[in-house]
């Protein structure tokens, strides 16, 4: 493809401020980030530093206060084509069955009901929920709801997948399972992924590249390539010596920011 080298996401000097109470709160400051097609980038940083804001800039849900955000080379004005976004909290529609939830994307994009359901049925099976098509979300476990959300996002076949701590609410075993599932579904999809997390281990298990953010207002502190082979097994890979080496290296950088966040928290509590 001709765009193999052109980045799919290009953020230049982006700053985002929110009005909070009387003053302004800067969530992201002077952020630069590029993501190549098919690349899996994890963004790690201390809790509440503004990682999610980065995703909402790319998705077009929030415009930047300064700087530029380009997706597929075009400046972001609305929600760009080909973007999928998995939110931290469940965003499945509680009044729709699993099948109809997964079918919402194609329906919004103008597919006929039958066609949308057929596509949905395939994706429900692909995320391992075959047999649960008629269930309502409240009848499913947390992990299964995440699978529904994943299918709902992937059925649109996004070329850019934004994920905002999607597995943070799950227990450790389920999280490992979902990480494997995500890697399996992602490999061969050719989609670029930006995966936000505060869990460094998760970032390293999944990503080709890890971006470390500073304590809020967030900006890029360092970028690390993850020299681990694919395909990876989420449970196995974290036991290898290579994993421990890269973990130590990135943690060195992340630790200071976590420390700063902690001290601020302590200052506020005192």
């Amino acid at each position, binding site marked *: 493809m001709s765009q193999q080298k052109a980045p799919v996401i290009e953020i230049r000097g982006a700053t985002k401020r929110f009005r909070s109470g009387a003053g302004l709160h800067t969530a992201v400051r002077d952020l630069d980030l590029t993501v190549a097609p098919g690349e899996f980038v994890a963004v790690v940083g201390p809790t509440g530093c503004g990682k999610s804001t980065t995703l909402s800039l790319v998705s077009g849900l929030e415009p930047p206060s300064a700087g530029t955000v380009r997706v597929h080379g075009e400046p972001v004005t609305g929600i760009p084509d080909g973007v999928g976004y998995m*939110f931290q909290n*469940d*965003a499945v529609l*509680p*009044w729709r069955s699993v099948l109809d939830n997964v079918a*919402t*994307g194609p329906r*919004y*994009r103008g597919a006929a009901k039958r066609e949308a359901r057929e596509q949905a049925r395939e994706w429900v099976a692909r995320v391992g929920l075959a047999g649960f098509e008629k269930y309502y979300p409240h009848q499913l476990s947390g992990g299964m709801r995440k699978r529904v959300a994943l299918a*709902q996002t992937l059925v649109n076949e996004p070329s850019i997948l934004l994920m905002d701590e999607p597995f943070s609410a799950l227990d450790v075993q389920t999280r490992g399972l979902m990480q494997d599932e995500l890697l399996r579904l992602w490999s061969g999809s050719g989609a670029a992924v930006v995966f936000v997390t505060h869990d460094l281990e998760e970032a390293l298990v999944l990503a080709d590249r890890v971006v470390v953010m500073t304590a809020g207002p967030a900006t890029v502190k360092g970028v690390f390539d993850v020299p681990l082979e694919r395909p990876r097994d989420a449970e196995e890979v974290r036991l290898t010596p290579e994993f421990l080496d890269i973990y130590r290296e990135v943690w060195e950088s992340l630790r200071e920011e976590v420390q700063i966040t902690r001290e601020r928290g302590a200052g506020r509590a005192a």
Partner: protein
Amino acid sequence: MPHDVREPQAAPSAALPTPEEDARAAAQARSAALRRRLTIYLVRIVLVAVWLGSWELAARNWIDPFYYSRPTSIWDRLVDWFSHGTSQGSIWEQISYTLREAVLGFVLGSLGGVVLGVVLGRSRFLSDVCAPFIKAANAIPRIILASLFVIWFGLGMQSKVATAFVLVFFAVFFNAFQGAREVDRNLVNNARILGAGRWAVLRTVVVPSATSWILASLHSAFGFAIIGAVVGEYSGADKGLGLLINHAQGTFDAAGIYAGMIIITVLALLAEWLLTMLEGRLLRWRPPSAADSNPV
């Protein structure tokens, strides 16, 4: 249920109850639930019997039945109305007249309330502009409008429909407004990312999430619709249950007032039952509430 300790041969699966024990426990739970229901009904019947009996007794011995009437004369009046008709003509005609007014006011009022509530709930600008007017309109004692509507629309059906409409509209409007406003932002953002336009977001996310709020308001709204219709008839009409009650008041007929009240109550209860069924169908997706699963 604890497993049966008297049967040691069940030892290997001692922790798990056998199917027979499960079935027995289920049967016990069922019959306990049945007994409980029967007791509740029995106590209710006793309460009603005591209340009516003491009223009847008091009216026969101590209080003046001319003012307070008594259960047997109310019953006679009802029988009379249904077998011979009322002073205003057939009872069924009065009922259908009032019911038509109430239903029409209810349907129009809830439609108006839902549409305006959802629109204002989703538009910060419009709701900020309209806020003081809505507060003021809500503070008006709206029942007084019934008199105004009689002047505007005459003694016919329109003035009662208008009164019912006004009462229903505000009850539904505030709930629809709140429901539309409290829609989970996450759900809206997710729908937008998945490709929904403004209209699709409204139709597939906002309205369904406001539905439980709206349905909750419809329960009281039908009551308001009947009140609107009856009060409308009360302030001037040529037919209807309100007129019947007004007439009974004019002739110091306490039994007639009670009888009209009972008919209206039955109508309201029927409507409530229908609405509950509708709610059950529309909210099937909701998890059962904690109250629905009783420990055995």
